[in-house]
């Protein structure tokens, strides 16, 4: 029997999820860390911490620094590698009957291809999110996601190798994020997610040294939300594929802003660090909002933003 609540199910590029709230990669580990703090089975989907072909030790500490209303991180994509992910992390993630989306990154197009193949063969994941915010070591370190041709190439090659829904995660550190979004849509992406972190830095003035060992890091948290929201709004108008909104979402109100401007789903990141049950609190808050506004289906809310609403 179905609960008498509003319909929360959404379709993100062929992946049907029971509600639009997902965990952002890198903020939810591989799930186990959060088991004591929330009912994981309630999540729309879990996006696991990013995996690469080979294990990576990550950056030297210090790796994080708090900044006004946000934080910088330079973890360095520490992960055990795709083989260990499939063998050791995936079985745990599978037990919750929640779709598992693997987050993939690489330093060459071949890396992306190999990890995609391995994950697709594993039969344990329900979708792929491709992190193109990393440098292409074969192209002088240019960020894949900042070059339309490279972003297109990664998308096309990954799509060619898998039947899983492919979400391309976009970097905001570009001149025109809409251009990149359109390019990956042409390349066959099933959805886009944005924004990844904004590159920033912070200086210890007493010692005149960077606060992060890596010097620069990715800014996240409420500080980035207005920028993320603007980008999601713009991209949602430009592409036909679903857009997943990410960036500083701390509560249901923040999530609703993203849904209203056109995001089909949202990812919760930094909020998990402050409130381990942020995701389920947000699911509850969205449901309450839908009831309060007599909306029976969340899809009737998505993209209903009235741009002219405040014009005299």
């Amino acid at each position: 029997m179905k609960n008498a609540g509003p319909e929360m199910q959404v379709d993100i590029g062929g992946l049907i999820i029971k509600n639009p709230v997902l965990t952002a990669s890198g903020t939810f580990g591989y799930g186990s860390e959060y088991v004591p703090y929330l009912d994981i089975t309630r999540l729309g989907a879990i996006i696991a911490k990013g995996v690469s072909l080979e294990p990576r030790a990550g950056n030297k500490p210090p790796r994080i620094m708090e900044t006004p209303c946000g934080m910088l991180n330079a973890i360095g994509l520490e992960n055990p590698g795709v083989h260990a992910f499939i063998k050791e992390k995936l079985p745990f993630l599978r037990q919750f009957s929640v779709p598992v989306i693997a987050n993939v990154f690489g330093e060459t197009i071949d890396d992306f291809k190999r990890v995609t193949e391995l994950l697709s063969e594993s039969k344990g994941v329900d979708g792929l999110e491709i992190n193109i915010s990393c440098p292409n070591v074969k192209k002088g370190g240019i960020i894949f996601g900042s070059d339309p041709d490279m972003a297109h190439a990664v998308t096309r090659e990954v799509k060619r190798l898998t039947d899983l829904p492919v979400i391309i995660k976009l970097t905001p550190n570009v001149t025109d994020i809409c251009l990149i979004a359109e390019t990956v849509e042409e390349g066959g992406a099933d959805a886009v997610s944005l924004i990844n972190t904004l590159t920033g830095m912070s200086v210890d003035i007493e010692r005149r040294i960077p606060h992060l060992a890596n010097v620069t890091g990715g800014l996240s948290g409420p500080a980035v939300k207005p920028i993320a929201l603007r980008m999601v709004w713009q991209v949602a108008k430009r592409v036909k594929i679903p857009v997943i909104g990410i960036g500083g979402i701390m509560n249901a109100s923040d999530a609703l802003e993203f849904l209203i401007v056109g995001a089909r789903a949202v990812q919760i990141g930094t909020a998990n660090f402050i409130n381990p049950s942020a995701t389920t609190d947000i699911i509850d808050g969205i449901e309450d909002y839908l009831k309060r506004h007599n909306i029976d289906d969340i899809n009737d809310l998505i993209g209903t933003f009235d741009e002219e609403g405040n014009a005299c």
Partner: protein
Amino acid sequence: MNGKIVKNQQISAGHFLLRVTLAESFKTPMPGQFVMMRDPGRIDPLLGRPFGVYGFERSQEEVTVEILYKVVGKGTLVLSRLRESDFVEVLGPYGRAFDTYPEAGKVVFICGGIGVAPITYLAQHYRSLAAARDVELICYYGASKAENLVGIEKLKRICSRVFTSTDDGSHGFQGLITERFSADISSYAAGSSKIYACGPRSMLKELSELVAGNSVFCQILMEERMACGIGACLGCTVLLKDGGGRGEHARVCMEGPVFNIGDIHWG
């Protein structure tokens, strides 16, 4: 969960004693474990701050946690401005606790500055163990000046001997606490003595050199900036020596904050 502040008192310049009552479901922290605290509802500062537990009491109706802290930045400044009856968010207890040995002969505590807080909780734990009645508790406590030797009276009540050092010589030995400790180090036999330390990284590094080559048990409590406190963000790592058994990086919040001193790669 949210706790209610019953006391947030300045006990010395920049040093505060915070006492918070919590629901009885809050687990009793083991010595060395920490809690994450923040002013609820704020987004600046955004993240919780980790504090080693200084005191803890459980009665029929409620539990009380005590934190001894020094104002060092925005997070602790905001905390210091909270008043009696204000709410504060307390998550935890988190992290790996100290290993304790009730059968030890001598237990030696070495603390620098605000590192005294979790060490005091550990010392109190030793004193409360019936099986550890015969253990001799000895403390070495260093600070910049006499007034910064916060909580020293409590330590004197718990330990049979407390040696102090200050940078300016205003209390005890003039110099570093590791220098004061090194004068006595030969009296702590590897088999029967256990050493615990918490303080600035420089102090812990110095101590690692003093005990290197000696097989004496020595555990230290490390501090790092943290975001989540529960092992997810990988932000609080310290480097371990190869062969530490946990890979090159270890999370202070999960594999720590207590480490065997010999496992740390000091760089």
